[in-house]
């Protein structure tokens, strides 16, 4: 299956299978006024299978969201047919990406506070709310085959 090449935009590649829709929703890609292609279950020599997202426009892409959902994906930024590749890392801080679920946290009653999580254990991928220190729900990275 082929999708047209992009002159200006992004190819988010090496997404762990099943994560493309999560990224689509987290980045609110459905609201863009450009073509967005989602390819799932694509054969990959490195990963066996992978997902890919193509965005046919240069937008303000939130790399923190991408790094949080799948720190092993790559983002190819295409500007006038020139490609630059960027590997993700787990962001040290997440601001307004996820919300604290602790009913005892101050953010549970003061919704205008920014939701901030800090990466406290990069090995175990642990993020904690800066206010109450409760751990954010874990994303299962273990099945990534990179």
């Amino acid at each position: 299956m082929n999708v047209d090449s992009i002159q200006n935009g992004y190819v988010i590649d090496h997404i762990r299978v099943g994560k493309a829709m999560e990224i689509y929703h987290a980045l609110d890609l459905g609201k863009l006024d450009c073509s967005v292609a989602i390819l799932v279950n694509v054969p990959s020599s490195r990963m066996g299978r992978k997902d890919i997202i193509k965005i046919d426009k240069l937008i303000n892409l939130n790399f923190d969201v991408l790094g949080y959902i799948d720190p092993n994906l790559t983002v190819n930024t295409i500007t006038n047919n020139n490609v630059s590749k960027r590997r993700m890392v787990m962001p040290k801080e997440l601001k307004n990406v996820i919300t604290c679920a602790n009913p005892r946290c101050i953010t549970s009653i003061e919704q205008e506070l920014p939701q901030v999580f800090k990466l406290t254990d990069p090995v175990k991928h642990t993020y904690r709310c800066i206010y109450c220190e409760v751990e954010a729900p874990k994303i299962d990275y273990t099945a990534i085959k990179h």
Partner: protein
Amino acid sequence: MRSLIDILELSTQEIDELVAVAEDIIANPVKYSEKCHGKKLATLFFEPSTRTRLSFEAAMYELGGNVLGFSEASSSSASKGESVADTARIVSGYADIIAMRHPKEGAPLVASMYADVPIINAGDGGHNHPTQTLTDLLTIHREKGRFDNLTIGLCGDLKFGRTVHSLIGAMSRYSNIKFVLISPNELKVPDYIRNDILIKKGMDFEETASLEDAMPKLDILYMTRIQRERFFNEAEYLRLKDSYILDTDKLRTAKKDMCILHPLPRVNEISTAVDDDPRAAYFRQARNGKYIRMALIMKLLEVK
């Protein structure tokens, strides 16, 4: 300008200095009676407290300063829906330093982000209570003469007991410390304490449900109350509230120089018969709270 939200923001050297100042205040109270003359402490207590609030107020008065504030949320603008951030901004204009207690975890941190004056966390839900830990540390120092080579039993509500969490964090920085964590299964220490402090730092610790088994090993027994206000479920509270009751009979196997601490208030977890035992240090501990808060207020106000 500096605040105190979490005990771990203080280095062990700073804790040693605070303890030394508190010891000097106890020995020479007159020397400190005008140190904070003209300064005001605001005590913003969104949750009831006797000991902590009164000890902060007594501390400021004994330093020659003044105190303003409220002792429950219903008598503050919080009852009208004012945010913690706004309250902190407003009170910054009225006071030189703020002590805040709040039922929600992280509220004092929020205050410190928006206030122009130092914030002292006087307890935020089941999370942190650094001045209680300073009180505990001063008491340990006065009772045992050291911070290292101690086996510390923590008994009761280790899940919601913020004093326990802060004390584990603080004492885990000293050498040859062993923790014996005594609690019912439902009230064990949270994962972030077990994983990020005890396991990560390679601490020597054991978890048990039996106070009797732990007793002979302990240099310090830190008792806690099962806190009704931390439970969403009353039936669960009633089932667990009498899990541990320390009485003279249980103390028979304890070391002769063991030290019994309790952040107070107690309900029935320490029998009043234990009060006369010289190892019962909890009333001395409550008194120490005033002195260490005096030292802390001076430090944060940068008063020499």
